[in-house]
């Protein structure tokens, strides 16, 4: 035991950043392509994660909690298939000596072995990912955190695994916001990417709607009736002070952050109809972006800020249009169905997700910003208010498919749909924070 501690201290020099120390072990990235996440028929990777081993004198009883949290994170992405470690019939592993053949017989392609050492309130976690087919370790990390914060280290390692295998970061270190009626009134809540660790952010005791994380992740723009009329506010995190930026006569709704976080597009009453204006973050007008006699709401900027998707009923029913911000030219994007709303531009710029009515219910679609056939992603219940994860790999949305409305996630191709909020009341209008925690 002492030997292994000595070994750790010799091998790893710990870097501590914001209380979370981590160190990259220099394993060469494999040339093997593990997972093409853009392929709709991508096979799930079978992975096995036995309980982490306690290496210290104190047993924090974290062996199962750590291993199962890592597995839960990986399965959340929809890219992995859980293999039960009870299927391992080989000899117990010794440090530096792993019975790859026996692990391969469990059916797994990948193995994660972890160990931890508790010293006072500090927890040292070591995790390694093995490619069983090649019989070698392809990723290894050590983290030092307060024992209470072990999930942070697990989430970070899960993110490393995903980045190694797919070239994309996972959502494991991100937060979401949504509206919930848990108190009887619509208030803004935030939670981890998987719906856990939820927290109420507002106490307006009014109608509060459409939270939208700022690009930096330190503010949420939203609409509330808290001062009597629908006005746009910014909620400043983490202090949770809110400041009103627009309460012009009529509606002040659907704020959408410009990519630099310094300005927003907002739908306002302009000469008797709802139009989209570009406002500074203090609420002063930059310019008017849309021009029609109809209703124009729900803007969403392209990642480069050169285009803006929005909803207009200028053709007689709500449809999605694309504005060229430079020329103010507008083209219609959706032609299928007579009620398409809530467009949101993917962070990579290659997709627009929206909710479209099919029969009497709404379903989530994605479509290329250049047009073409939309792809329908949901099937049952009302599915609305899509938003992309920061890497674009997943879509969060609200659905009432199981009765009351709750927040769900799925892969951007529609696979792996699951509910993530289980609060009382109804949860709607989710927004995914574009920034990772601590970034």
């Amino acid at each position, binding site marked *: 035991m002492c030997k292994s501690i000595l070994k750790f201290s010799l091998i790893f020099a710990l870097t501590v950043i914001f209380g979370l120390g981590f160190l990259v072990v220099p394993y060469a990235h494999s040339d093997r392509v593990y997972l093409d996440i853009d392929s709709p028929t991508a096979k799930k990777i079978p992975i096995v994660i036995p309980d982490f081993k306690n290496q210290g004198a104190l047993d924090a009883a974290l062996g199962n909690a750590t291993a199962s949290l890592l597995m839960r994170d990986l399965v959340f992405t929809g890219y992995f298939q859980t293999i039960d470690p009870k299927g391992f019939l080989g000899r117990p592993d010794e440090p530096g000596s792993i019975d790859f053949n026996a692990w391969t017989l469990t059916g797994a392609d990948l193995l994660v072995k972890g160990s931890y050492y508790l010293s006072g309130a500090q927890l040292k976690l070591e995790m390694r990912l093995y490619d069983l087919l090649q019989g070698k370790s392809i990723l290894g990390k050590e983290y030092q955190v307060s024992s209470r914060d072990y999930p942070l280290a697990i989430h970070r390692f899960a993110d490393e695994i995903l980045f190694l295998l797919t070239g994309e970061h996972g959502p494991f270190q991100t937060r979401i916001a949504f509206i919930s009626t848990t108190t009887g009134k619509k208030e803004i809540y935030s939670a981890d990417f998987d719906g856990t660790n939820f927290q109420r952010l507002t106490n307006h005791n009014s109608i509060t709607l459409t939270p939208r994380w700022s690009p930096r992740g330190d503010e949420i723009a939203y609409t509330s009736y808290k001062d009597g009329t629908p006005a746009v506010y910014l909620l400043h995190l983490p202090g949770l002070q809110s400041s009103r930026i627009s309460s012009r006569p*009529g*509606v002040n709704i*659907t704020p959408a952050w410009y990519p630099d976080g310094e300005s927003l597009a907002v739908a306002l009453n302009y000469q008797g109809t709802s139009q989209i204006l570009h406002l500074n973050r203090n609420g002063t007008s930059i310019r008017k972006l849309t021009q029609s006699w109809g209703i124009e*709401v*729900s803007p969403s900027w392209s990642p480069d800020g050169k285009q803006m998707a929005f*909803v207009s*009923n200028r053709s007689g*029913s709500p449809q999605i249009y694309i504005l060229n911000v430079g020329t103010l030219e507008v083209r219609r994007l959706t032609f299928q169905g007579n009620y398409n709303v809530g467009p949101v531009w993917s962070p990579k710029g290659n997709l627009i997700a929206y909710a479209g009515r099919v029969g009497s219910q709404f379903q989530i679609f994605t479509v290329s910003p250049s047009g073409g056939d939309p792809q329908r992603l949901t099937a049952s219940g009302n599915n609305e208010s899509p938003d992309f994860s920061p890497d674009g790999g997943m879509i969060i949305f609200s659905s009432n498919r199981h009765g009351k409305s709750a927040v769900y996630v799925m892969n951007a191709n529609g696979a792996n749909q699951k509910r993530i909020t289980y609060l009382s009341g109804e949860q*709607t209008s989710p927004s995914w924070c574009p920034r990772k925690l601590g970034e």
Partner: protein
Amino acid sequence: MKAKQTGFWALILVFFISSLFIYSCSKKAVKSEGIVSKPPTAVEDEAEKAKKRVRIKEQELSEQELRERALREEEAKRLQTASDKAHFESEDIYFEFDQYILSDTAKQNLNKKAQWLKDYPSAKALIEGHCDERGSAEYNLALGQKRADAAMQYLVSLGISANRISTISFGKEKPVDSGSNESAWAKNRRAHFILK
């Protein structure tokens, strides 16, 4: 000559006496007339009084009636006002799905509201625009505003000053019927009026 003088005085005397007699007779006659006419006069007074009493009573009655009638009318008017006021606030106007065009029924309702606002020139109204649960919360906020605006513009076109009317949209946030069927939706697609 002496005989002529005596005859003169006698004539005067006769004249005097007869005149006395005539006087007393006439006086008697007047007196007796008075006695005769007395009983009918008393009857007449009683009748007159009774008549007067009736008249007064009639007058009193009609005054009370008038007062009561006035009160009744006032009350009726008050009730009418209250009822108009209640109708003003309770009678919503309704819209088709995803529409903010005023139907003929809606216009008739608004005509009554405009008249009421003219009758009560100090009254101010708030118009709330509402939608059914279908469609996005965001789009419905804008649609509800359009509905409130349509009602306001119609009232203004009937001569109601725009600064007596304000509008707010609640989108689909405040349904009157929480059901998920056409009858509930039809009730929820409305403009609601509140006197301030």
